């Protein structure tokens, strides 16, 4: 097994040299697997990666993440931008040679219409990013190539939000005719034109010959095939029916592919902007008692679990509320000071037993609600049940399908649950939103109300100084992990397999980024 992993690692390390050494070739059709089918064509109405792996090649965004310099951002439809000294005005100069797939010209009015729809959706239109852009006070278009966003308050995350891959830019003329147009048809300014979507089967796109970047895209087209069953996806990759799966595979699946495909396969790995959380329902006794929550967090051997679970699941890094290794993440030296993050598990468990005894529940029993999704929910659930058993806590592990699972969590019909945080970037305002009080953030599964956390969140969100912001973040994290309303178990690890003929695709810590396929080419 070690040998297989070594081969994979070597393959990954060899990538940059190979990519740089060869000039991109034009032509060919990229065929890749998508492990879910998008629920909608409207980027504003969804948060699932399945939407982006389908839609991103057809659309452009105002900015996008520069994956070579992640988390830096770069222009997509914007050629350049400036931010005013008070950090409340963002002025974007737009590209002038952009046309829509129907041939009509692109202008600043399209950006305005798109963002107006995002922040203030008309009746019947769903915008899951309405709150994200609530700080935008006005959008002005002084000329066809300039757009000015004025904010009502400072928001240090706003530039990154403009680079969100979900903010597909739509035609103002089409939106004027029908605000629901993006949900019905796919028409953007992206590198590929929509060809077909065969429901349940695949999506296909063809090169946009009038794409605004010269000589791009390299591909003639692409085909995204929906393959829901992991074994079928592995077979398809091994058999050459598909050339890549851009979300992730598990370590065991990676090893099977390496064994089956040998030097035809490239494996790229990265830490992932996803984590598994343990959520304690603070409205249920005894989880309203901080000693009980802290004891259960103390009992988890995260460092040992990181070693063991990383062999069998997509879980790997120990981290706090921000992705380990990301610019604002808590360093390990500070992290180990939080309850449950120290490396002396014997001492942690002794402390946990003491806290449970003090709280009057030395023989605690409860039900752990989890999802039926295998990776990484099932191994995570099994692991924590075993960890708690070691301090005398008896847990019944109840796995549920996604729909009843979400229903149980949202209604508060659970005691302790395996939850998750799914981000597309390492931005604290996005990452910490899940932990503010339940009356402000319904996605806070612990249902805790903590005004100190709310205040710290607001302060970091309005801070104009990075150092000051970092200070508030540390305080927020310390408060959160000490109160242990929701505690991270481990962060996920992304493993992307591609056939070596696929070139120019860039790995990143988020499966939501880098799917516009502009720079992808086939070495065949």
């Amino acid at each position, binding site marked *: 097994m070690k040998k297989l992993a070594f081969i994979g690692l070597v393959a990954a390390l060899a990538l940059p040299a190979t990519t740089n050494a060869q000039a991109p070739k034009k032509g060919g059709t990229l065929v890749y697997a998508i492990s879910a089918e998008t629920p909608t064509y409207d980027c504003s109405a*969804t948060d699932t990666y399945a939407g982006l792996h389908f839609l991103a090649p057809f659309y452009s965004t105002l900015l996008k993440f520069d994956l070579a310099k992640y988390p830096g951002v770069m222009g997509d439809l914007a050629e350049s931008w400036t931010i005013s000294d008070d950090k409340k005005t963002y002025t974007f100069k737009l590209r002038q040679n952009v046309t829509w797939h129907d041939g009509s010209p692109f202008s600043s009015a399209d950006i305005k219409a798109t963002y107006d729809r995002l922040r203030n959706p008309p009746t019947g239109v769903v915008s899951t990013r309405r709150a994200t852009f609530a700080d935008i006070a006005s959008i002005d278009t002084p000329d066809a190539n300039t757009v000015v966003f004025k904010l009502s308050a400072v928001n240090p995350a706003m530039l990154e939000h403009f680079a969100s891959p979900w903010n597909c830019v739509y035609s103002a003329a089409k939106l004027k005719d029908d605000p629901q147009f993006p949900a019905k048809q796919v028409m953007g300014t992206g590198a590929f034109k929509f060809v077909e979507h065969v*429901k349940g089967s695949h999506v296909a796109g063809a090169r946009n010959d009038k794409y605004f970047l010269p000589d791009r895209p390299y591909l003639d087209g692409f085909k995204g095939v*929906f393959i*829901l069953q992991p074994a079928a996806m592995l077979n*398809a990759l091994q058999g050459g029916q598909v050339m890549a799966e851009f979300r992730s595979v598990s370590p065991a699946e990676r090893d099977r592919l390496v064994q089956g495909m040998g030097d035809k396969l490239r494996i790229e790995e990265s830490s992932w902007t996803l984590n598994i959380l343990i959520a304690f329902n603070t409205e249920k006794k005894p989880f309203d008692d901080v000693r009980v929550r802290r004891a259960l967090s103390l009992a988890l051997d995260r460092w040992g679990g990181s070693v063991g679970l990383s062999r069998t699941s997509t879980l790997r890094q120990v981290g706090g509320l921000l992705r380990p290794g990301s610019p604002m993440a808590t360093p390990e030296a500070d992290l180990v000071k939080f309850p449950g993050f120290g490396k002396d598990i014997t001492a942690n468990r002794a402390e946990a037993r003491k806290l449970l005894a003090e709280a009057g529940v030395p023989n605690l029993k409860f039900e752990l609600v989890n999802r039926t999704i295998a990776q990484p929910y099932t191994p995570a659930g099994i692991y924590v049940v075993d960890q708690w058993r070691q301090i005398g806590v008896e847990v019944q592990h109840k796995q549920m399908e996604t*729909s009843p699972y979400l229903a149980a969590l949202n209604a508060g019909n659970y005691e302790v649950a395996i939850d998750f945080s799914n981000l597309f970037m390492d931005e604290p305002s996005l990452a910490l939103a899940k932990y503010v009080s339940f009356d402000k953030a319904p996605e806070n599964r612990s249902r805790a109300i903590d005004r100190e956390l709310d205040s710290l969140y607001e302060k970091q969100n309005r801070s104009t100084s990075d150092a000051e912001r970092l200070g508030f973040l540390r305080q927020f994290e310390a408060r959160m992990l000490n109160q242990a309303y929701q505690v991270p178990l481990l962060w996920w690890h992304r493993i992307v397999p591609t056939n070596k003929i696929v070139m120019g695709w860039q790995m990143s810590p988020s499966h939501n980024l880098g799917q516009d396929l502009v720079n992808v080419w086939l070495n065949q």
Partner: protein
Amino acid sequence: MLSYLANRTLMMVPTLFGVAVLIFFLLRVVPGDIVEVKLRGDGGTVTAETLEAERKRMGLDKPLPAQFVDWMTGMATFDFGKSMWTDRPVSEEIAARLELSIEVAIIATLIAVLIAIPMGTLSALFHDTWIDYAIRLFTIAGLAVPSFWLGMLVILSLLSFFNWLPPITYTPIYVDPVANLSQLIWPAAAVGYRYAAVVARMVRSSIIEVMKEDYIRTARAKGVYERLVVTRHAMRNALLPAITVIGLEFAFLIGGLVVTEQVFNLNGIGKLFVQAVSRNDFTLIQTMVMLIASIFIAVNLLVDVLYAALDPRIRY
């Protein structure tokens, strides 16, 4: 016969209405909310107002009886509504998959019939000989081995021995028959084996029983050739229960190949059914249940009509 057909067709209405009532209200008892799954299933931070607005847009805020009346009115006018997950017409969602599922069912039925009838007959005519034992072993294995597992073996064998896999996306048979059959023959064979085993055992036991009947003895006493005794006198009667099984299996295959479809990545009705259930896509589930119930009823009717064609004693 015509009045019988008319009566049976009319009887479909209350049967389907009963199915409709049952499925509609049972689904509403199941916990879960499609809006939550759709907008928050991947961890999205969506406000409660957005969720509520989407529920309203889908008509989920209306009282249940009003929702039922809306659905029934739509059904009566062949407007099956829109999928709550994709917002596309349910008829479009189903039509894209139905063609493939029906084709797999037809190919599997052909495979099953071509294998089962000769094997079942041979097994009956040579019962308690090595031929019978070999066929029984073959059929018992067919019943014991799950179709999806056989499918996995087929896929892995094709990959290991020939480094080849069938096409991954569906091409209609009228567009490219070779591509179509090279994709569908493998899953059809995998499910056809079990199907053949069920039918072959039915044929065998029926023929053994029929061969003991008085009219067979009479035919033999009259000096009729043994081949004619079997084909003309025994088979026609012995096939009646086999036809019932073939009909039921065929109807089952339309929507029941859930795991096999996933193994072969087939875009069929079974996979759609599972997706719809996991997402609480009520309108899609309801329409699919009604479709499958209609297929079962139609196949049963066809089987009854075939009874009359095969057995001169049966008249409606």
